[in-house]
Structure formats: C-alpha cells, structure tokens
C-alpha cells in the first residue's frame, strides 16, 4: 500500500514538473478547442426576452421577443497576421435557447490569437449550395415556428429581431426585422452579409494543449437602430433592399469583453 502511495505521489510530482517545464513550448501538433460566448445586451442591460422594456436612439420603447442570428466563416488571427479559418462551421445564436449562446471551435492549432472575424449570416456560396449541404442549423426543417429560411426568395434570414413597441405601426404593435439577402443567384440583389472583426484587446487567446480559451463577446442590440432606424418608420422589414441600415447597425454591436485562458 505504502509503495503504491509513494509511487503515485512521485508520478504526480514528475508530471507537474514536466508540464511546468514544457509550459512555454508549443508542439507543432498541439490543438485545443476555443469557445466563444455570446452575451446579448441592450445598452448596458442584459437582454431579457418578453418582460423587459428598452429604449432605442429614436426614443422608442420596445420589448424583445426574439433575437436570432447566424455566425459563420469564423477566422482567428495571430499577431503576425496569419489566420486560422473555420470555413464550414455555421452557428445559429438564439437568445431563447441558452445552449446556442456558446459556440465551440474544435482543434484550433496552439498559438496566441489576438483577434477574430466572423460573418453575420450565411455566405453566398452556402446560400446557393445543394440541399445536401444544408444540415444542422442550415436545415430548413430545423426551425419549427421560429423560421430562419425564406422559401419564396430562397435564402436564410441572417438576423431576426422581433418584439413589441408602442411606436409600431402594425395593428398588434409588433415589430419584426428579418434581415437576409446574400446578393442573389439569378440576379444581383441586395447583399446584407456583414463581416465583424473583434480585437481581443490586451489578452491574447492562448490556445495550448492544456488551455482551451473562452472568448466572451458582449453585444449591444441597440446598435441595430444606430443607423437612423426607427420602429415607427419601419415596423416590419422583410425585404433585403430596405435592410441595409439595420445590417450596418448590428454589424457594430459585437465587442470582445475579455478572454479566459484557464488551464484545463
């Protein structure tokens, strides 16, 4: 028994020693996951669906019942400018479904990443792809009543914000922003794909074989209204051409708050 304990302690000690020694070295095949958390805010307040009332730049009061958006084409950038891309990863962030707010990128090569970029929406190539390519969050059968796909004008709804507002001109006082438009296949149409670049600030995301960083992104949904958008003027937006100011606005809503580099 004693011998076993001694052996175990020695083993742990040597492992610790060994790992401490290796800390700063990055093996060529070291990999780990990187997690991004999307924490949706309205101004300085954490977004609460249904019950909480907010005010936009046009001084209109509103509640939010739905906030969904696609995140795709994520690229992580190192200080030297080299990039690691994740071209076939599509995520659908849905405020109503907490587990969608955290996304994970597997097998990120070890390294120090200083910023990330990603697209809000589904790129044009994927938007015209064969139905075989449309699985997971891109499967038109996956949305239930919270639809993110336009069947009549084939394409995805990149960003969806719905709620109620006394400023809305609809009989039910409901406002609906459904933003899509990848540029068109059979004709040139509005393109509301937006790419966001977010710096990690002073703390790089240090992917190591024993560190799987978490990047905490804070959004400000009020930015959706920042380009002169008002609920009174446009209570229902479902056509790409009219969506530009909304897309320009929400493209500004993402900021990296901090990065965790906790050891596993």
């Amino acid at each position: 028994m004693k011998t076993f304990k001694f052996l175990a302690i020695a083993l742990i000690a040597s492992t610790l020693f060994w790992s401490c020694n290796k800390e700063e070295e990055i093996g060529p095949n070291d990999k780990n996951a990187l997690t991004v958390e999307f924490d949706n805010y309205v101004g300085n307040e954490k977004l609460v669906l249904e019950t909480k009332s907010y005010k936009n730049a046009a001084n209109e009061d509103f509640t939010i019942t739905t906030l969904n958006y696609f995140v795709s084409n994520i690229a992580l950038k190192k200080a030297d400018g080299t990039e690691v891309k994740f071209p076939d990863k599509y995520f659908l962030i849905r405020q109503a479904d907490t587990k969608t707010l955290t996304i994970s990128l597997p097998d990120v090569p070890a390294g120090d990443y200083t910023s990330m970029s990603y697209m809000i929406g589904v790129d044009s190539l994927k938007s015209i792809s064969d139905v075989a390519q449309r699985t997971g969050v891109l499967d038109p059968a996956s949305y239930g009543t919270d639809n993110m796909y336009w069947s009549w004008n084939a394409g995805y709804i990149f960003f969806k914000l719905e709620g109620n507002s006394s400023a809305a001109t609809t009989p039910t006082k409901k406002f609906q922003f459904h933003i899509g438009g990848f540029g068109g296949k059979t004709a040139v149409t509005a393109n509301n794909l937006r790419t966001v670049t977010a710096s990690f600030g002073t703390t790089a995301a240090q992917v190591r074989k024993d560190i799987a960083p978490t990047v905490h992104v804070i959004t400000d949904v009020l930015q959706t209204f920042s380009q002169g958008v008002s609920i009174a003027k446009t209570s229902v937006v479902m056509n790409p051409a009219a969506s530009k100011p909304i897309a320009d606005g929400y493209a500004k809503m993402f900021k990296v708050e901090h990065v965790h580099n906790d050891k596993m």
Partner: protein
Amino acid sequence: MKMTHWRTAALVVSFMVWLVSCSILGRDASPETLFAVPAGFPEPTYNLSKNPITNDGVALGKKLFYDGILSRDGTIACGECHNQSHAFTHHGHGFSHGIDNQEGTRNAPPLANLAWQDSFFWDGGVFDLDLFSIAPIENPIEMDEKIGNVLAKLRASKEYPSLFKKAYGSEDITTERFLKALSQFMLTLVSANSKYDQFLAGKAQLTADEAAGLQLFKDKGCASCHSSILFTDHSFRSNGLLPEYNGDLGRYRITENVADKNKFKVPTLRNIEVTYPYMHDGRFLNLEGVLQHYAEGVKETGSLDQLLKQPGRLGINMTKEEQQKIIAFLKTLTDQEFLKNPRFATP
C-alpha cells in the same frame, strides 16, 4: 495478360449482375425511361449527378406529390393545384386555392420539363428545384405546414420509412432525401411528344392553319421570348399587363430592382391549350383572350418589353384571322401522352 483476365472476369461479373438485376427489376422502367433528354432538347440545367433518378426514388416522390400529409391538416397535396390532365396546373382557377379554401395570389404554373428550368415561380424566387417544394408546403395559404413537421409525420407513418429505405438504402428521413425524391418525380415530367414534336420528327403533318400559325408565330415575334424547343427563354419580361388585381409586381419582389417591376417569367407554351386560365394572375380565360391582349390590350407598364413596342403602337400587329391561326398552331403543342401517362397519374 493479367489485365485481360481481370477485364474478362469483370465483364462476366457485370453481365451476370445485369442478368440478375434484369430479372429482379424487370417490371421497372430503366433509368433512361424514367428520364431522358428528348431529341432536339438541350442539356438539362438540373445537375442529375447530385440526385440520380431511380425507380424507387421516383415512386417515393410520386407518392409524396399526391399525399396530403405534406399539408397542415392533411387535405392539400401538391397534386391539388397541379393536375396532370391540365399539364399540372390548377384547372379553371385564376388564383390557385389552398388550405381552408383560401385563395392564393397567383395562377399555379405548369410542371413540365423542369430539368431545363433554372428558376421557379412566376418571379423566379427559387433557383433550385430541390429547394422549390419548401415554399408551397410552408406558404400559409397553400399547405401551411413546416418542413420539420412533415418529416416528423413521415417518420411516424407506417409506410414511409420503408419507402425511404427502398429509395435510399436506409430509413432515415432527411430534408435532402425528402426534397430530392419530390424532385425526382417532377424531373420525370417531360413533355416532348406533341403533334408539333411529331411534325419535327417527320411523323405528322400540320394542317394548313397550323402551318400558317407556326409561320406567324415566328414572323410576329412570339418565338423571340417563347423560344427554342422549350418554348421559353426563361427570362423575365413585362408583357403589358398592369397589376390590376392584387398589386403583384412579379420579379421586382425578388430583385427589388425598379426595372423589374411588372416582369414575370416567360412561361413555356407546351400544353398551353389545357393550362387555362392564362397569365400569372389567370386573368384571361382562353387563348383568344391572350392573343387579343397581345394585339390590342398591351399597356405601358414602365418596364414593357421592347419587343412589344412597335412604331406608333404597343403590342403585336395581328388580324383576328392571324390570331386564330397562331392558336391553331399553339394547340399542336398539346402532348396527349404527357397528359395521360399513367406514370404521372394520381395513384
């Protein structure tokens, strides 16, 4: 030497496989019979390699096409608005009717030769046949169902899992398999055996009126848009119809380009005799009304097609007699084999 042996062996094996499969599948049509490019037709636009047509795939697609299970309350099948005897249009209905007897906003277009079509709907809003079926299924005034629900109902049904297995090798019912089976059936709806086709093949004679109509069809410029063996150039054009009924602006709804206001897809004229009423909103009851429109009814729509702007007048200069002859020709585009083929019929 070795190679030759292998080759011989491979030949023998494949011959045996062929023999066996023939004896097993003898009653089924060969893929070539299910879908073939008719003489004089161009290469299909649809990429058949991504959805190889098989007997079981087509059979599944046909069953789905005629099954109300695709709609919210089980009452509306695709075949409801797409009747074979009327070249898969909703006969007699200006606007097609959907669930709860609600009226749609457009006249159901014919389903024929879809493998050659690169956009769907009167406004071309969908660019892939495989993505097409989602729209009528989810449209609240057509079938008012969700694709996810349809798949759940099919999975829970007694017969569909085994039909999917037959078609695809496993019982998995996915969006791709569901949509591609529907495509397979629709792709087989090829119309290429009208009297006109037989005339081209030297197997039939046109009457004097029909022949004169064909000449007028070319001379008067009809064939500029209703071109080729498909009788459409697949373009979007304004043919002088103002949005009098429901403000439908056509292609503009998709492109949001002002120049596209009042433009609609040029439809094929194959089987036109039986696809009444006519135009995107079904405003003309018969072909006489259509020809009269082109002769006397064309309006400046803001995007009116150049071909309908003649010196000093709008529309096409045609006498009543010429119109009658063109109609006589158009009726030679009726394909009785297509309209009556039991392979396409309600099960």
